């Protein structure tokens, strides 16, 4: 990757949700950083694909692309959403405590099963935004 071949390395996304394609730390098996990829676009197309594939395996955070419904039931909120991993329904406790704000527009939702869903507000459609604004 860096001129000389290195084996047995792994990749770390330093901003897994807000910057999924930038600031990628390349580390050896003994956790030494050997390179920080500032942006995937620095790499040639085939390396990009390889990196993407590897990252996809290491970071399993579905992204919410549309909210079909958010309903409250007792102390729970039932969500019906469309994600990058397909349709899914999940449950959260108090949104207050289970939605982490990463930036003005990026959020992490944690459900009662410990799953995490990323959400980019600007990528939601109008209807989803309506639901979202009621919650947050």
């Amino acid at each position: 990757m860096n001129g000389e071949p290195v084996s047995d390395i792994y990749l770390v996304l330093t901003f897994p949700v807000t910057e999924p394609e930038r600031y990628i730390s390349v580390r050896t098996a003994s956790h030494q950083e050997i390179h920080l990829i500032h942006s995937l676009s620095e790499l040639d197309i085939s390396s990009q694909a390889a990196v993407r594939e590897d990252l996809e395996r290491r970071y399993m955070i579905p992204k919410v692309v549309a909210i079909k419904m958010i309903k409250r039931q007792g102390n729970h909120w039932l969500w019906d959403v469309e994600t990058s991993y397909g349709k899914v329904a999940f449950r959260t406790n108090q949104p207050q405590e289970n939605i982490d704000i990463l930036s003005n527009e990026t959020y992490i939702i944690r459900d009662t099963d410990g799953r995490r869903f990323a959400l980019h507000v600007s990528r939601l459609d109008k209807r989803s935004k309506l639901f979202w604004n009621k919650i947050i």
Partner: protein
Amino acid sequence: MEEAWLTLQGDLNRNMQFEQLQVLFTASKLLVLDREGRQILHIPKQNVENIRLIEALGGGYLVASTAKGPVEILRFTEMHLDSCRKALSRVEQWVSKDSFTTDKRNDLKDRNKTCAHCGRVMRSAKDSCMRCNRKWSTVSHLLQRSRAYSASMIVMGIIVILTVLVSLAPPYIIKWIIDGISAPVGMGGVSSHLLWMSGLLAGIYILQALLQMIEGYTAISIGGRFLGELRRDMFHALMKQSMRFFDNRQVSQYIGRINQDTDTIKDFMSQGIVHLTSQLLSALFILGMLFYLDWRMTLMILIPLPPLGLFVMRLWPKVREMWYSQWQSSIHVQNMVGEALQGIRIIKAFSKENDEKERFDKANSRFVNRMISIQNLWMFMTPVLTLFISLFVALIWFAGGRKVLEGGMTVGTLSAYATYLIMFFGPVKWLAQSASWINEVLGSAERIFEVIHTPAEVTDDEEAQPLSKVRGEIRYNHVGFGYAKDRRILHGIDLHIAPGEMIGLIGPSGAGKSTLIHLLCRFYDPDEGEILLDGRRLSSIRQEELRKNIGVVFQETFLFDGTIAQNIAYGNPEAEAQDIIQAAMTANAHDFICRLPHGYETKVGERGHRLSGGERQRIAIARAVLLDPPILILDEATSSVDVETEAAIQEAMDKVIQGRTTIVIAHRLSTLQRADRLLVLEGGRLVESGSHEELLNRGGVYHRLLHAAQGASGREVWIPMQEVAR
């Protein structure tokens, strides 16, 4: 077909799409089934070389190595990670052994806990049962709580009924008066009739005033007691919670819950219930009167009620949501104030005052907007309802007037009827509007009961025995632990500490040293293995008793807002001044305390901010000393203090550790040299143990850590290990 001895669930398919999948392990093979139970993969056991679990952020994979290369057998998100982790060792056994005893204890699967209230299966252990958390359970909890006040409540009920009845009388008496005046009877009869009736009317008004006074008095006393008890129970419930409860929550919101939410409920219990019942009763009684006066006209009036009810029902969920978001933004504002004040030094140091103001204004205006929008919703209801009612009254005057003209009704009856009608719509209007209030109250009650009914996570065994004299023998048996599911902090810790031994625990920052201590104090329970004190499992010892026997000085010292003496005596409030001074002397704190003008009575300020870091530490040491525990734990602060203070703290520690089992998380060389035995923790594993010399000679991790530290600083002081970590 062979029976499966283990089933593991997955929820992602090859295309990274959600799909329920499962692998079945039978004695001779493993099978992967899709959602419909169709077999999509099949590997005979003899082809499997090993099975690995690859953990990713948010999930993981099970991969089988075969002669032809690795085969992914299952992919899953976080929710199934834990059960796979737990199953892994048995799967490994299955792979390695020829004859695997397929015992079908399904303890490897997620144990399905059932809800203690309704017996329904719950989906995850931490989760509270959904069915039991409905609105009605909130209402029934409220009712249960009010049972304690049944005597006052009954008094209240009687008063309410009386009040309602009494308030019904005046229009009827006025009807008699009007009919009396307008009827062409002898003058004398009328005037004495008039006197009687007016007297009666006055009497009724006096009675009404009296009843209102008693009602108000009872209501206030019920509400006040209710408020007190709710707050008490809520605070007690918070104290009972284990550390994880606080780790996962924004703690400052509970200040709001204890204050505002209980207040909302108080208002409801004192005024709300009275109003609600009296309005309901009035509506019913008045309706009866209306029917009695003229049932045909009354039927006509009732026509608009069903649509009105429907309308309120439709609005109900929306209102509920609005109240929730209003609450949420009010909590947000509150958190912001709390955080800003706690961090005021940083804010000033970076001159971020204006940004903070802006942030606050934004949150505040959001809160205001939400409040306004709730009020608006009901603002428009009021005029609409009033208009509605007025129109009906006009209609009644017309219809009733014609009846009077036709002689079917007296003028008095008509006037009474019109008055009752207005009175009838009063409660109806109130009830419609109170939908908003009731929602607010239910929201508050839910939040309160959520806290009160959350069970503590770390619990003692039921047959926990009292602890006699503690010798201080500590044993960790294969302990594994993680704060969250997605990250293990400690792995397979095996450890034995003899009574009276002094252990020095060292390792790079983040190795899990403090975590090891948290487990001993039972702030958390280990996920795997067990910890024994004097040969007894920690869970068989009552937590308070356990902690009374362990004196801890934490890495970050926390002092309560009180005097120095109060802080030192925190674990032992009966301590005499004599003992406090003795403890302070042992902790080398006495001298600096004497230099303070108010001595031991110096107020330390919130979190002890009026003292320096080193001073705070020594007070914390004195606090542990005064407790005189058989086990002492010192988590040395990584922050460096000046050499002199450090020597003072060091000396204090030396005096303190004598005759106790001591664990010191050490960052200073002098501590390390003094320890009977050193344990080196790296990456959550115990990697080395032995005396200072032994470990130095071995030239392993300890040597590396120490060497780097000394090389970097030159003097014999342990520097924070962050820089040496890797």
